[in-house]
């Protein structure tokens, strides 16, 4: 959101949006045929045929350019150049594979058993019994289907062939191929235990001769609240948080480095001089951070969507309950973190002209990122957030990591989260103003590396 806000500010400040279709009034004509009007060019007409990704991408590009003018043009050039790069494509593929593995692997041989359970039923199983089986499956995150079996012999055969995980016989027995605790059992041990317990309770109700109302009251029983002094280290949202932190660190580092190197390369190739003869420094800077930010957001969105699909497909509990909230929180903090750091990296890039200068500039900027990341991983693993960590959750350089972890530990209320986001937004605005000043003064100064004291003083361009 901060990125969008910052882009909007840039767009507002950027006077002189592209006037579509304008030719320089009175200017000399280029050689050859007179350029056709908007939409009339042979190479730029709208794509024909069914709506596809290319059409969608073109429509998005035109929308950004039309909305933000010159800033949008600059942003879309960045998007095209970055997405076209092999590094981006391979990096995205690698991250998708890594995230997919992080979600799938814990569901393999983790003791939860298969996610989909086929349950054979021999003899009668009352509706109430069927409801209990489904309730147990839901509790254990299994998808269950009940399959009637004609007789015990067929049920045994189905068990041996693996067609069913276990069998309920006459509503009061459970048949499994081998003990559920043994390895290789197709039955989910937790589900078998829960179904056995539920059916046992149902049988007890019957024997006790309870009325329908009494049974209903008992059914409505809910466990009392269990409060732990320390959160469980095995809570799924904690694992989600750690995976998210790794991605957040990777993406923040990658995209901010792109900004740093991109600005440096524009300066060293002198293309910045041609660009700034046409557009304002703030437009150029805003377009670049917006473009790279859109790529980051797109990549993060793709990974998040992919994670949800994979998690759903394999029955992972990483994104259930609080896990989804943690994912959303980390997406938001990716945007806020990028919005804060991108300006600092851009300003640093504008003072450098060579690769070795970039490395020495990147190091101090990456220290708060590293601090926040390492500290957050430690806290997410231990579950212990101390006072210093909570303070860091309100400072823009470390908040993207620390506040996400507090969310996963259930130690941040909505207003604390909002307060931290607002502080981050305020820090972003301050950083953007400072960075724009440094950029404007440094990016056209070539030769030796420009030092901050030179540009922060009354410094000529």
């Amino acid at each position, binding site marked *: 959101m901060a990125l969008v806000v910052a882009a909007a500010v840039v767009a507002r400040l950027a006077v002189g949006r*592209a006037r579509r279709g304008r030719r320089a009034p009175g*200017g000399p004509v280029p050689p050859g045929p007179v*350029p*056709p009007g908007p939409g009339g060019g042979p190479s730029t007409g709208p794509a024909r045929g069914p709506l596809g990704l290319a059409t969608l991408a073109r429509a998005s590009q035109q929308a950004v350019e039309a909305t933000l003018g010159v800033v949008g043009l600059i942003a879309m050039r960045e998007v095209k150049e970055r997405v076209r790069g092999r590094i981006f494509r391979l990096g995205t593929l690698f991250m998708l594979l890594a995230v997919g593995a992080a979600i799938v692997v814990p569901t393999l041989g983790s003791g939860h058993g298969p996610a989909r359970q086929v349950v054979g039923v021999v003899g009668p199983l009352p509706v109430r019994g069927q409801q209990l089986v489904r309730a147990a499956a839901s509790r254990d995150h299994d998808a269950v289907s009940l399959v009637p079996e004609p007789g015990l012999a067929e049920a045994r055969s189905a068990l041996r062939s693996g067609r069913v995980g276990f069998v309920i016989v006459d509503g009061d027995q459970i048949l499994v191929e081998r003990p559920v605790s043994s390895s290789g059992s197709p039955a989910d041990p937790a589900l078998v235990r829960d179904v056995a317990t539920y059916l046992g309770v149902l049988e007890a109700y019957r024997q006790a001769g309870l009325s329908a109302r009494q049974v209903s009251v008992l059914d409505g029983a809910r466990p009392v609240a269990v409060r732990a002094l320390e959160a469980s280290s095995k809570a799924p949202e904690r694992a989600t948080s750690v995976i998210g932190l790794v991605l957040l660190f990777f993406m923040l580092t990658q995209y901010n480095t792109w900004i740093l190197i991109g600005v440096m390369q524009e300066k060293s190739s002198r293309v910045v001089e041609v660009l700034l003869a046409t557009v304002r420094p703030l437009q150029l800077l805003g377009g670049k951070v917006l473009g790279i930010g859109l790529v980051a957001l797109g990549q993060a969105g793709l990974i998040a969507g992919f994670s949800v699909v994979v998690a759903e497909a394999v029955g992972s509990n990483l994104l259930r309950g609080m896990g989804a909230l943690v994912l959303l929180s980390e997406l938001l903090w990716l945007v806020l973190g990028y919005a804060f750091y991108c300006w600092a990296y851009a300003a640093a890039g504008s003072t450098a002209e060579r690769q070795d200068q970039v490395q020495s500039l990147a190091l101090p900027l990456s220290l708060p990122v590293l601090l926040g990341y390492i500290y957050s991983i430690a806290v997410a693993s231990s579950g212990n957030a101390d006072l210093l960590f909570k303070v860091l959750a309100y400072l823009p350089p470390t908040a993207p990591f620390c506040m996400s972890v507090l969310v996963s530990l259930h130690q941040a209320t909505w207003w604390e989260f909002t307060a931290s986001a607002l502080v981050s937004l305020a820090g972003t605005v301050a950083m953007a103003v400072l960075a724009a000043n440094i950029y404007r003064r440094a990016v056209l100064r070539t030769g030796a590396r420009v030092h901050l004291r030179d540009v922060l003083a009354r410094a000529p361009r």
Partner: protein
Amino acid sequence: MSALLELVGLRRRFGSLVALDDLSFEVPAGQVVGFLGPNGAGKTTAMRAIFGLTDLDAGVVRWDGAPVGPAERRRFGYMPEERGLYPGMKVGEQVEYLGRLHGLSPAAAAAATGAWLERLGIADRRDSKVEALSHGNQQRAQLSAALVHGPEVLVLDEPLSGLDPAGMDAIGQVLVDQARSGCCVLFSSHQLDQVEDLCERVTIIDHGRLVASGTVDELAAAGPRRLVVRIEGERTGQWARGLPGVTVSEVAGGAARLVLDDSVDSDVVLRAAMAVGRVTQFSFQRRRLSEVFREALH
């Protein structure tokens, strides 16, 4: 009245170095103006000032009577001394992109890009990356980028440097054609012969100050008289060195090129020459631009 680019009272100091020192001159539309000066004279700083690429301590740049701002600059074309294009971007895409930044529609930018690449002889490199082009072709791509939006003012910093004679002629002809179609063309160069051929006007600066400005004809006709004397059997010009008010500027191809003070009677020179041998050439000539340049800097 045709439009005019005016640089008025420009001052710029970098620490103790004075880059521009109350510099003023004009570039009329429809003319090619050569911008000359020794290295470090302030040419590049003055050109960057037109585009707001350097802060000015004082002075103003006007176009058509009004101070130049961002909106005006989008109608200008600029080719910096240190060429600037994205090395890894395709030539066609890059020129189109710059056309769009100058306000062209996608279709107009694509058409103008094709036309200019064709005109400058690099249409077949449209899909090549800039870094894959030769120096001369990069120069052409850069010029295409400066021209793609049909600028009203074209400012080129050393557009001819590093080009072979054919390249110089091709780019020179583009500059002349642009001026003929009403563009205001200012370019700097050290190729004085080319400047003399291409320009109607010349502006010469040194140490950030204007030292000479005018049409090529005016500048050539001004100053001391030039006399070329050729004598059979005499190839050193030594005979003229002792004559009062006469300076031997050069001896080339057996002919001595003399610079005469206002007080010198050319008949005296002729008699001195005849005393040495048979005179086969005795003619007054205009100042060459190189002479204008050298004398302006003295």
